[in-house]
């Protein structure tokens, strides 16, 4: 079964507490909704802390596995705070990964469910390139150094003779401008 195929559950709109209780009660649809809801959040957390798409996806798989095991067993003490529980599992596993080289994965329990975990559709390259070309040179430079060369704010600041705070502000401005230009924002900038 392709674990990356997308399938929406028949029921959704559960509040977190109701979702957790439904999972404890054995509702398959609730487990699928749980995976769909939390997989993107865990992936982004993994990208932040593990700096790799592959590692983020592995982390997502592991966190969902362990969380579901606890939920099925009714061992989550505060079902209404399921989000905090999942975050706690994610933190624990990131910590373990940093200490261990290999993880043993038990895929048996997740094989029954399908959830989308491929990276989101990439932005249209041509549109992004046009938007990037419209930026001021300094904004474009800082974004290229940040996201391609993966340089820290301090490195960029030293390289360009700017203050770190200035680099950060320019980066914010550039990224937000790109977001608005490519039309990804559903509402006004915050």
């Amino acid at each position, binding site marked *: 079964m392709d674990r990356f195929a997308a399938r929406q559950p028949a029921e959704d709109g559960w509040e977190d507490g109701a979702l957790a209780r439904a999972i404890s009660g054995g509702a398959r649809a609730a487990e699928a909704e749980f995976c769909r*809801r939390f997989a993107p959040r865990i992936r982004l957390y993994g990208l932040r802390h593990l700096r790799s798409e592959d590692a983020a996806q592995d982390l997502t798989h592991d966190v969902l596995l362990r969380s579901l095991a606890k939920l099925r067993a009714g061992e989550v003490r505060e079902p209404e705070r399921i989000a905090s529980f999942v975050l706690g599992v994610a933190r624990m596993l990131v910590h373990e990964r940093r200490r261990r080289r290999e993880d043993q994965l038990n895929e048996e329990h997740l094989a029954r469910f399908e959830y989308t975990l491929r*990276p989101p559709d990439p932005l249209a390259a041509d549109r992004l390139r046009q938007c990037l070309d419209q930026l001021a040179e300094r904004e474009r430079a800082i974004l290229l150094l940040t996201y391609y060369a993966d340089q820290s704010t301090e490195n960029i600041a030293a390289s360009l003779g700017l203050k770190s705070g200035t680099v950060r502000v320019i980066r914010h401005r550039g990224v937000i401008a*790109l977001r608005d230009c490519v039309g990804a924002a559903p509402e006004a900038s915050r």
Partner: protein
Amino acid sequence: MSDNRCRAPRRDADLIDYLRGELPAEAEHVLEEHLFDCPACTEQLARFERIGAGIRDLVAGAMAGGVVNHQFVERLRQSGLSIREYRLTPGVTVSCQAGPEDYVLVRMAAEFGSLADVNVEVEFHDLERNAKAPVMRRQAEIDRAAGELMLVFPGTVVRSYPRSLWTMQVHGRMEDRVQRFGPFIMDHTP
């Protein structure tokens, strides 16, 4: 969970800094608690993550250029992209010929020192038509460690230029006085 909007949306700047690992630990901890509980802010975060990934893809696909530094160039080389490099000094004409490379790197070297508010004036002379374009003025940045102004151009862009002469002047402020450097001249053959 039926309403996807957030009643206390997180600042765009914080979301951008979070992905870079540049939030203070306490602020990051609080933000993560919120993100795991908020699909709307998670979606905003995902948009910013896609922007960063999109920029990486553009550079890796030899579709983006601009002002860079020596660490960026090193990253290009490490990733296996082909780079043709030209080093320009004031008053010396350098011949360049377009080839199949992914990127063309132009390095302008002079005693830039602490030059600030840097701009490059570019005069383009189409030698095939004997026509000069209006002088273009672009903001630029000096790589302080290398002491050079470094520009990368996608190879596809360079290969589209006709037989031409590019004359560049760099100017900026140093100790409250305007300083000019150049001319930096490239004799381009397609």
